[in-house]
């Protein structure tokens, strides 16, 4: 089996990987469907409503997973450029949600226009053309100065620090963080064929998402005292440690598709999961500050769907940490 897998070309290997992912998702969907067919004993209203709530949560989780898997698959099928454009669109919509809930004033209009229509495309063009050194410093160094200058020239000093800081935060999380996912895709390791970046992305996403899901499920099953109840009712050290450990384990098991040895893969996955889950906590603090529970329309949208940023924020924090650790460790 091993010899057969190794004999496939990279493209075929990635194709097989997607087959496995969609297969697993289909199995889970089928299992969820079969479970929903089970009858409910009459007269037990509490159990019935709890089962319905559980089914709804499972369905939401499955929907998110299907959407993410399909987006990644479409990006891979269409090639590197299309994948970069796809992630640029995701960053655009995530930044739109972030800015909606930030207190911008009239004087920020020009800076916002620059952020959406100059900084975002430029950052993703730098990713697409593999200028990794420039793309790493473009936002933290150049944009960090340029946008507050434009705001200052707009002659409005009221809450200037707050507005500039929030804009910079939004760009760092949504644009800078998101741009590291296609950067991983385009990273070439010496001694490996090009195109192996897709496996790294898969490794990262699977490790981080596993960590978040396990942390969420364990936190529900074994509730402890929340660490920071004003920020998050569900963040506890126990479930967090368990989530990070399981995420790291999953990453370690996946070492065969990455250029890491198993020990290295475990370490990298632990790092990525820590960054992702703690980043999610930080975003929760930001949301609490604005008084909302989700980045989508004040959490009360007609469709009941949460925002896009809620789903990808762990990835936005994990990707830069992971990317730069990989680059530093391997001296790329």
């Amino acid at each position, binding site marked *: 089996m091993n010899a057969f897998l190794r004999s496939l070309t990279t493209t075929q290997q990635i194709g097989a990987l997607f087959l496995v992912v969609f297969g697993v998702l289909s199995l889970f969907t089928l299992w969820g469907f079969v479970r929903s067919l089970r009858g409910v004993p009459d007269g037990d209203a509490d159990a019935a409503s709890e089962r319905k709530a559980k089914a709804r949560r499972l369905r939401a989780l499955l929907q998110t997973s299907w959407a993410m898997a399909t987006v990644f698959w479409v990006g891979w099928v269409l090639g590197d450029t299309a994948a970069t454009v796809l992630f640029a669109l995701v960053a*655009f919509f995530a*930044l*739109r*949600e972030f*800015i*909606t809930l930030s207190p*911008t004033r*009239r004087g920020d*209009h020009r800076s*916002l*226009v620059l952020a*959406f*229509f100059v900084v975002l495309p430029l950052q993703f063009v730098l990713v697409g053309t593999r200028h990794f050194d420039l793309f790493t410093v473009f936002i933290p160094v150049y944009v960090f100065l340029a946008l507050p200058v434009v705001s200052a020239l707009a002659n409005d000093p009221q809450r200037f620090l707050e507005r500039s800081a929030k804009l910079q935060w939004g760009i760092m999380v949504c644009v800078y963080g998101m741009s590291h996912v296609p950067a991983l895709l385009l990273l070439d390791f010496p001694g490996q064929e090009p195109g192996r970046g897709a496996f790294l992305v898969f490794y990262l996403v699977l490790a981080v998402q596993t960590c978040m899901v396990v942390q969420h499920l364990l936190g529900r099953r074994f509730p402890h005292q929340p660490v920071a109840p004003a920020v998050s009712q569900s963040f506890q050290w126990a479930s967090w440690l368990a989530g990070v450990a399981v995420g790291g384990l999953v990453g370690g098991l996946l070492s065969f598709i990455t250029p890491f040895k198993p020990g290295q893969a475990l370490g990298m996955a632990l790092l990525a999961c820590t960054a992702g889950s703690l980043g999610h906590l930080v975003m929760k603090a930001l949301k609490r500050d604005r008084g909302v529970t989700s980045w989508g*329309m004040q959490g*009360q*949208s*007609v469709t009941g769907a949460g925002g896009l940023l809620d789903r990808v924020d762990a990835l936005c924090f994990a990707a830069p940490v992971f990317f730069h650790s990989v680059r530093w460790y391997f001296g790329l």
Partner: protein
Amino acid sequence: MLAKLMGYFLLGLVRVLTGSQARWYGCPPKAEQRIYFANHQSHADLVMIWAALPEELRSITRPIAARDYWTKSPFRQWITSAVFNAIYVERQAAPPATGAPPGTPEPGPTPAVPSIPPSPEALRAALPDTDPLAPLVRALESGDSIIIFPEGTRCHGDDPQPFKSGLFRLAQMFPHVVLVPAWINNVQRVIPKGEVVPVPILCSVTFGAPIALEPGEERRPFLDRARRAVMALREV
């Protein structure tokens, strides 16, 4: 054909930029004859509320458009007439005293008020063609739903300005038409006054429970009640 394509393009553009989400809080999107009245903060308001309606309602609902702004260039005129099917209104809004058609009761507690208010048909018939409300009345008579902005002009403060009397007179002339308040959220951040390039910000239009003109209700209390209904949707 071109208008339809333009319509789809504008719809896509508005959705990408603002999400233009419709929140039917107080009533469902029903294809009955309605007057939607909303707060007015930017020229993009009519595009926003048009994009928020579902497709079936979009074809029977005509937004109001200020003639002096939207006929300035052939492109704007084409967009508002062919794509939005808007009703042009003169923006020299009818002030209550000089604009009231002859034969209607004078607003105010003077003894000149006749004991029986004129019927809706009489009010409509007495409307002169030069009245700013005339195009709206004709549209309502032919069965269309309309979208109006009772403030009259764009408001740049936090709260909507006091409503002008157009809504009251239309409610008198068409008692069977459902009046639906709406609050358009966030649009002033997308294109503030004096800017050209829009910023993508999520906007929503919240439609509230319909209000109706009570028999014997005076103009100012009714308009204040309508304004409060619109403002209440801001908190939703």
